């Protein structure tokens, strides 16, 4: 980490293991995303300080067993929102087909044997699936613009993200400070 108390994107490149991660760019970007930092509706910050860093990390804290149902739902929404922001790169509130394709291509880029076209068709298929889940029956002329956040929530309904999306941190107290 930089010594001046602020971190920029380049610093993330110094983490060796991160190089192997296919969606590294999106993840790093997520750290600087204003929406995640709660600094604005869109755009990227240039640098973040430690507090911002922790804000991002706090999305990954485990669900506390003492939380009640409402808090669990809130936590879940927050985590899903983080994910949503990662996919929705242009901050328009919808994951369009192109953005989705982008994500899928990156995800599958780790495997050198899968061509871009396959990735694309997978993205298309996934989009169709999402549409079927979210919108159900569509008229022939209806156009499905993209996945909104509510649609996103719908897709994730059956899966308990709260238990999957977290990392064990040794020291939990510092995280709690930020929220």
């Amino acid at each position, binding site marked *: 980490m930089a010594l001046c108390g602020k971190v920029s994107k380049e610093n*993330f490149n110094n*983490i060796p*293991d*991160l190089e*192997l*991660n*296919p*969606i*590294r760019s999106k*993840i790093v970007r997520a750290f600087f995303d204003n929406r995640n930092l709660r600094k604005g509706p869109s755009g990227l910050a240039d640098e973040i300080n430690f507090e911002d860093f922790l804000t991002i*990390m706090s999305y*990954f804290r*485990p669900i506390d*067993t003492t939380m009640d149902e409402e808090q669990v739902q809130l936590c879940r929404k927050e985590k899903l929102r983080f*994910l949503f922001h*990662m996919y929705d790169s242009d901050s328009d509130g919808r994951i*369009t*087909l*192109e953005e989705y394709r982008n*994500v*899928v291509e990156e*995800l*599958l880029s780790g*495997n050198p*044997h*899968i061509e871009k*076209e*396959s990735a*694309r*068709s*997978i993205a*298309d*298929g*996934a*989009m*169709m*699936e999402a*549409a*079927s*889940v979210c*919108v*159900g*029956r*569509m*008229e*022939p*002329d*209806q*156009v*499905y*613009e993209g996945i909104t956040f509510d649609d996103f929530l719908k*897709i*994730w309904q*059956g899966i308990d993200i709260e*238990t999957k*999306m977290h*990392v*064990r*941190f*040794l020291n939990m107290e510092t995280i709690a400070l930020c929220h």
Partner: protein
Amino acid sequence: MPGRGAPGPGWGLLLVLLALGELPRAQGVEEKPGGAHGESQGFQVVTFKWHHVQDPYIIALWILVASLAKIGFHLSHKVTSVVPESALLIVLGLVLGGIVLAADHIASFSLTPTVFFFYLLPPIVLDAGYFMPNRLFFGNLGTILLYAVIGTVWNAATTGLSLYGVFRSGLMGDLNIGLLDFLLFGSLIAAVDPVAVLAVFEEVHVNEVLFIIVFGESLLNDAVTVVLYNVFESFVTLGGDKVTGVDCAKGIVSFFVVSLGGTLVGVVFAFLLSLVTRFTKHVRIIEPGFVFVLSYLSYLTSEMLSLSAILAITFCGICCQKYVKANISEQSATTVRYTMKMLASGAETIIFMFLGISAVDPLIWKWNTAFVLLTLVFISVYRAIGVVLQTWILNRYRMVQLEIIDQVVMSYGGLRGAVAYALVVLLDENKVKEKNLFVSTTIIVIFFTVIFQGLTIKPLVQWLKVKRSEQRDPKLNEKLHGRAFDHILSAIEDISGQIGHNYLRDKWSNFDRKFLSKILMRRSAQKSRDRILNVFHELNLKDAISYVAEGERRGSLAFIRSPSTDNMVNVDFSTPRPSTVEASVSYLLRENASAVRLDMQSLEQRRQSIRDTEDMVTHHTLQQYLYKPRQEYKHLYSRHELTADEDEKQDKEIFHRTMRKRLESFKSAKLGVNPHKKAAKLLKRERVQKRRNSSIPNGKLPMVSPLHDFTITEKDLELPDPEEAPSYDAEEMSGGIEFLANITQDTATDSPSGIDNPVFSPDEDPGILSAVPPWLSPGETVVPSQRARVQIPHSPSNFHRLAPFRLSGKSVDSFLLADGPEEQPHAPPESTHM
């Protein structure tokens, strides 16, 4: 002990068994008279040589009996939904044992440890390992290990010591036992049995985490059981007073050696197995053999080295899964799957039945009320206590907490089974004086846990509202997001410098991709072995299959229609299909002006891989059927954009083709031909060609054929039964078919629809030919696959058939345009194989 739950057929079964039971007792009785006769009569035309075939005959008979019993049980669905099959089998065994005993006055059959450990147990454990959900297993490995090791030691120690305490207090009366005997008994009765757990839990369907914990524990505790058993047995042999601290230390060391050694043996054999399957491309037919032989060898090798054999074969299965499944062909994979399941199921059936039979042996019974009752109490109580304690510790480290309900199920699900029985029978009665007492108690315990606990666990699970397993179809989105998750989480772990599950898993998968997969997987498999891709293909195929099935079910008569668009309305699409997106979902792909257009044309032109080709085939297959069920189908399965401009054109085309087909079939009928025969011939020819044509990938394609066989049964309702077709002279027709086939040069005959279609045609007399659906004549209707199209002489008319949906200029339907330029350069599929 009446055979419970035996309906009418069950009684018949019993009578048959009685009759069969007579046979084994005839051993030795026939020989002498026969021999005597032989000497006096000279050459005997027919002799009854029972001894000659005795052993294999009896074995085969028992297997037959067990299987017949299974059939008998499942005749009554009500019974099997309440009573677990294992319980029924035990009861049946008791009955059979009673019959044999009554007839023979000696117990001639029992479950011998040798047979059990060498032949009956390995298939079950291999089945468990090969189909183990690896990610779930390794994700919960810490929990599983804790329960397996600490839990089993706790159970053994507490049970043994408590029993000893009670013995000392005098409640048990006079027995010739020492402390070590009790500890030995404790160690063999403490272990949760994988066979029993599987047998009961597979009918209960608890959620997967719970299942994997209990089941994993039952598998991994073998090492502990083996060590404890051997240690205490040698202590008993030495004599209680000669046990030294060194021996105890050696015992502890042996635990690590046994468990890790067993695992290592399993892993080595898994490596060998994966490596071997990499090179079996040209000997596909014996591929399944390798899986079984090498796994069995791992079991025997480990047994030979006195390591934990169960661990060896389990880890062999676990580690080889991925590579073997990637390397072997689809048919081999199916063969392996079914054979394994069959062997495992058969072994399980035999085990339980013989448990029942072996119990009916007056010689082994020694009853001691206090001992038996207390054993039952102790194992239940101590297991519950152990589970609670361990869960409390674990919950501080686990993400997903284990609730009270889970703990209840875990304690209650700790069933004992045949492993304990085999171990207790192995005891040497000279060293363990009270062996019979142990045997009887073990049998009682096993019966209690399997029958009583097995019976009541289902209602318990329902009453407690245990989270059940969710049978969900794999969704592409879930897979994608799941993958994204993994990456995000491991990135976070990297950033924060933590070493967590995700970090480890990431590292492992990188290592695997860089080194292991290169060594152990075929090149062609490496390419296509990505889970997301698999789900995608699976979904594609599933859609295709249900699509076609629907189409067939809807109505063969849908093919026959007038070229008016009104016809569309006549076809009844009342029932919504689950896979059908009830709308033109394809339109979601319609780009608006600003978005990038789907460059389908370029996309299709660049497709080279077999997999893509298969997708093509899928789509082509669908395309063909897309003719009949109009709007709805069209939109569902096209993952490319479609417009509705071409309906009219399509109608005209359909009409022409229909008429042509009818004329053809009419002509062929005139020749007095049996279309069925010709279909069979064509089918056979096609099958032979398929086999010869190694270019056909092991992938999805053959799978579609069974689909058609399946749909045939539905068709039978509408069309006359093919079997009733009278035998006609098929000569001319086959010639005609060949001619037709040659038109399309469908030598590869890859198009499944075209192949099976003829089988749909059961017309026997010309009268109904007018109503014959157009797909009867196999040649023309066939939409040749991409592969086949290579050989087709390029004729534009072909392609029109393929592309009903001429699209607006921008996004064009892949097949149409792609086929044209791609036809020549499309290399034969062989090249893409390794």
